[in-house]
């Protein structure tokens, strides 16, 4: 019981650390929040005019379609932040200092998770507001919309564990750039901006089976926004897959991360 109390207190201490980071670097926070907004504007207005969505024509329909994709993409890009935070603590010896204190060993990941999920909630809120400003709406009631937000945060939670694991494992200066580059194909090789059916067959299949596509498809369905449709099983079961994919990723990367952290002394 005492152990649990300290684990919670230590987790709270490290969450607080990240919130203090925001307070001390508001400019970084704002830039981080503006990036997805920029994506909305770029794709919505620069490229959106040329896009057609089944059942509708023109920029407005594309923006209806675009917002769920941008929300999910922002969750995936969150992986970079998690990775960077974990890796820089390891590289600077901060993780070692944590490990040489009597704090609960779970606190590092608990603090990271809570702070990153809070940050994801703020990002979602900002994006939703900018989406509403460009004409996006949810059409199937608040409960369905909240379910969509839940699935988006679940995807972020899965990305969190990938980020933690990579942060503990990957070494070297160029690592962040490598992760940033690798996140892009994960983000774009999906149904976020274009229909998988418009891609070469094999590429479209990969895009449909991308975990991001399932969350995007599920969010479109729950918000009542237009989607690409798609006849494949995975496209037909977007909501189910939006639960299963993150669950699978967590089932893989959570134990890997815990194992890696516990065995930093090996």
């Amino acid at each position: 019981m005492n152990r649990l109390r300290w684990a919670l207190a230590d987790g709270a201490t490290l969450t607080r650390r990240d919130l203090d980071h925001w307070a001390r670097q508001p400019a970084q926070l704002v830039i981080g929040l503006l990036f997805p907004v920029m994506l909305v504007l770029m794709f919505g207005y620069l490229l959106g005019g040329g896009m057609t969505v089944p059942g509708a024509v023109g920029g407005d329909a594309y923006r209806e379609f675009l917002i769920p994709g941008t929300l999910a993409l922002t969750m995936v890009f969150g992986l970079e932040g998690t990775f960077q935070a974990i890796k820089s603590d390891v590289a600077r010896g901060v993780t070692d200092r944590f490990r040489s204190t009597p704090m609960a060993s779970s606190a590092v990941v608990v603090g990271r998770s809570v702070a990153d999920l809070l940050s994801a909630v703020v990002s979602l809120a900002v994006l939703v507001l900018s989406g509403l400003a460009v004409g996006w709406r949810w059409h199937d009631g608040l409960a369905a919309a909240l379910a969509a937000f839940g699935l988006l945060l679940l995807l972020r939670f899965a990305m969190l564990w990938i980020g933690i694991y990579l942060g503990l494992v990957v070494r070297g200066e160029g690592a962040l750039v490598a992760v940033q580059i690798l996140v892009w194909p994960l983000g774009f090789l999906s149904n976020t901006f274009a229909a998988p059916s418009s891609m070469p067959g094999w590429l479209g299949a990969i895009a449909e089976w991308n975990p991001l596509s399932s969350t995007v498809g599920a969010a479109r369905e729950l918000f009542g926004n237009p989607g690409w449709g798609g006849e494949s099983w995975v496209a037909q079961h977007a909501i189910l897959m939006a639960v299963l994919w993150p669950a699978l990723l967590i089932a893989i990367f959570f134990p890997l991360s815990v194992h890696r952290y516990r065995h930093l002394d090996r």
Partner: protein
Amino acid sequence: MEAVTAHALHRRFGAVPALSGVDLSVPAGSVHGLLGPNGAGKTTLVRILTTLLRPTAGTATVAGFDVLREPDRVRASIGLVGQHAAVDEILSGRQNLEMFGRLHHLGRSEARTRAVALLERFGLADTGSRAVSTYSGGMRRRLDLAASLITAPPVLFLDEPTTGLDPRSRSEVWEAVRSLVAGGTTVLLTTQYLEEVDRLADHVTVIDHGTVIASGTPSQLKGQLGGDRIDVVVSSPADLAATAALLAGLTGNTPDTDEDNRRVGVAVDDRMAALTATVRGLSDAGIAVEDVTLRRPTLDEVFLHLTATDDARMVTA
């Protein structure tokens, strides 16, 4: 009472041995210097003693607790200053100290009080609310030291605390360590600098290639290493032989002659007397000199000496 003990510690990384049977014993309240070149195994030893790394074989205790069986109690008894200033760059000095205080399970107000007191003690009171990224190297080190002292731990590990610091920051750190020792803390310090153990340590263990190659007080070691040296650079190569003979006569030691640089060097026992006698002797003999320097042996010379002679291997206190 021993604050730190190690018995037959081994550690290998894959096939590469980092420690090959290290024994160590540090009495409570003393400063122990661990001297050795890069890659000697100093950091590995510190990481084992601070529970960050498991030994492949052997045992160790810190503050009376076994590092393998009672890691939590060891962690509650130690402070660690690693090679990099392990503090949060974005937070302020005060926020860092409060965070580490909380992680040591101090109450909120206690952590705050302690942070303020430590900032004061390490001369960071004025800059305590600034982001650490704006600190100088010396200030970061002092904050790092302060962070390791949050709970006034009985045993403090300093892993190359002054590597990469300018001379002024280095003496700031030395000053801070001295004040700690005056308060009764046991300090285990690793360094590549002979001067550092000379200034701070009561006892020195020299390690190389993962084994202890010498051990003793700084003065015992220096005695074994031939102590200080005088180098004389003469104007004319013709005077080299006469200078060598003069230095041999004055010190009773065998000088080395470096003809290319017209330099004669010799180990001396009594620094100032030897210097005075050398300068006077050269002047009386009418030898024109370009330079006379009195210096401590370099670490290279120490290791050459320690690995070259068997009788210097163990100097017991």
